[in-house]
């Protein structure tokens, strides 16, 4: 694989992570932990994989990305801004009154947001609907969706998992951000969804397990998913909550707590 591409993506992911820290730090709330764990996956999608035109957010042929774990909005906003959907300056309005950057993504407010999410467990259903529509219309766009590993405790996720396999939606690729933590603690202690890969396989999905911070693995997995016929694809991405900021990594306390100014400064110093 192209090492130059990997290096570019790594550099871009660092910029995305810096945005996440600055945005959540500036507004004093938000979810940095699960945004940082998903940063490399989202970067790979927006800066390599997705067929998009920021000038035409409604372009019918575009690929779709649904952030089912809507609380990771900062990573989505950072990617959209960096990709040119809106000015990066606007990122610092996160969660402010009158901002287009709502606490959880609002498709009616911000260009590039494909689905309003936030109430967990609903994104895969919407992604399936987009995929069915694409098939009906004879369009070859693909639909990507990012799920949290705590989120898959929601029953609707499994209704949608069943439906995607039943309707053979091979134009759907889902990522599971398997960082191992939810608000109340480690997922295995709160309500274990394990073994996750076996479950998706049993539901009729093509499943790959990768290191969600290794761009080579992420890109290879996406490419492999594209080749699968007759089945939706799940990429179980082993990730680290808070990835990239030493004092946030593996710390459940950073799920929904923003860094204070000195913490943000320290985090930014690490992300260079």
């Amino acid at each position: 694989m192209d090492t130059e591409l990997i290096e570019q993506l790594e550099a871009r992911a660092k910029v995305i992570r810096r945005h996440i820290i600055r945005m959540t730090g500036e507004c004093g709330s938000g979810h940095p932990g699960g945004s940082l764990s998903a940063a490399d996956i989202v970067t790979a999608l927006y800066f390599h994989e997705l067929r998009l035109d920021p000038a035409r957010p409604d372009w019918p042929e575009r690929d779709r990305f649904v952030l089912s774990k809507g609380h990771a909005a900062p990573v989505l906003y950072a990617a959209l801004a960096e990709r040119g959907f809106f000015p990066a300056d606007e990122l610092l309005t996160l969660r402010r009154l009158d901002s287009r950057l709502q606490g959880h993504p609002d498709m009616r407010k911000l260009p590039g947001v494909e689905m309003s999410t936030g109430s967990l467990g609903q994104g895969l259903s919407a992604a399936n609907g987009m995929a069915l529509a694409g098939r009906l219309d004879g369009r070859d766009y693909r639909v990507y969706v990012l799920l949290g590993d705590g989120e898959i405790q929601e029953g609707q996720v499994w209704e949608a998992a069943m439906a995607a396999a039943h309707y053979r939606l091979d134009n759907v690729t889902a990522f599971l951000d398997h960082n191992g933590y939810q608000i109340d603690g480690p997922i295995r202690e709160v309500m274990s969804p394990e073994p996750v890969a076996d479950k998706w396989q049993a539901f009729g999905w093509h499943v790959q397990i990768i290191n969600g911070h290794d761009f080579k693995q992420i890109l290879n997995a996406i490419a492999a998913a594209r080749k699968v016929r007759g089945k939706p694809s799940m990429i179980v991405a082993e990730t680290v909550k808070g990835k990239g900021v030493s004092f946030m990594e593996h710390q459940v306390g950073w799920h929904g707590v923003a860094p204070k100014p000195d913490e943000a400064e320290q985090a930014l110093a690490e992300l260079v």
Partner: protein
Amino acid sequence: MSKKIATREAYGEALAQLGRENPRVVVLDADLAKSTKTLVFGKQFPDRFFDMGVAEQNMLGTAAGLAAAGKIAFCSSFAVFAAGRAFDQVRNSVAYTRLNVKIGASHAGITVGEDGASHQSVEDIALMRVLPNMTVFVPADAVETAGAVRAAAELDGPVYIRLGRSGVPVLHGPDFRFVPGEAVTMREGTDAAIIATGIMTAMALEAAGRLQQEGIEVTVLNVHTIKPLDLEAVAGAAKATGAVVTAEEHSIIGGLGGAVAEILAETYPVPLKRVGLTDTFGESGPSSNLLKKYGLTPEALVSAVKGVIARKQGKVL
């Protein structure tokens, strides 16, 4: 008024007609396609029909995704499941997003009959009415149902259509024009007004006929659109008559009666009696017996009208 057609039957036919005219229309069901009558569409347009199995939450979410990609997505189940089981999906994936999802909810109210309270929605109008961006239609007969389906497809945004299991009289001729948000004055009188919705409109007309024989003239206002409510018509009926009865096959809390009480309290307060289910679930039984037991009859409306007229005349009951 001899011919009876269930609104769900009219819904199935209207969907199929819509399917012939508009290729953007898709239909989803949750394993009740024979009962909700979406199968009429499904048989004619198998490519645009999706049975989602017994999974209403996913059905609503999938419909949202289809709508986000340009489809007009009708989805159906019984009202208890479409509005109740999948409430959060309706709220977050459909209403908040203002997507083109149309919920055709059948088997509403107690006329579901023998299946009993678990399947009899007495709260769905309240649940749907409270959601921002949601339009709520409760057609009174087959003609209004056809109009509601067409109007729903034309409206940009989410719509809830409440449908019934049992046959109801056809009240309108073929020339009737269904205008969203416009209540229909079925007859006029100055002594009192019955503001009715759904299957209760036919009963209101029957009650009005009986009252006329006693020399009492009532207006019957048929509210097929609960939201947006026709404020002018509701307040107008109150002003013209000074006494109002609401009639619905739904809890008197939060439904048509609730909406009318809210509006009249703020605009033109008059003696008001809400006829409907009085904060109770239904039960099993033949639908006609249930209607009698729970006080949803022309007789009950006659007595409610006399009650509000007495209050209007200063007689405290």
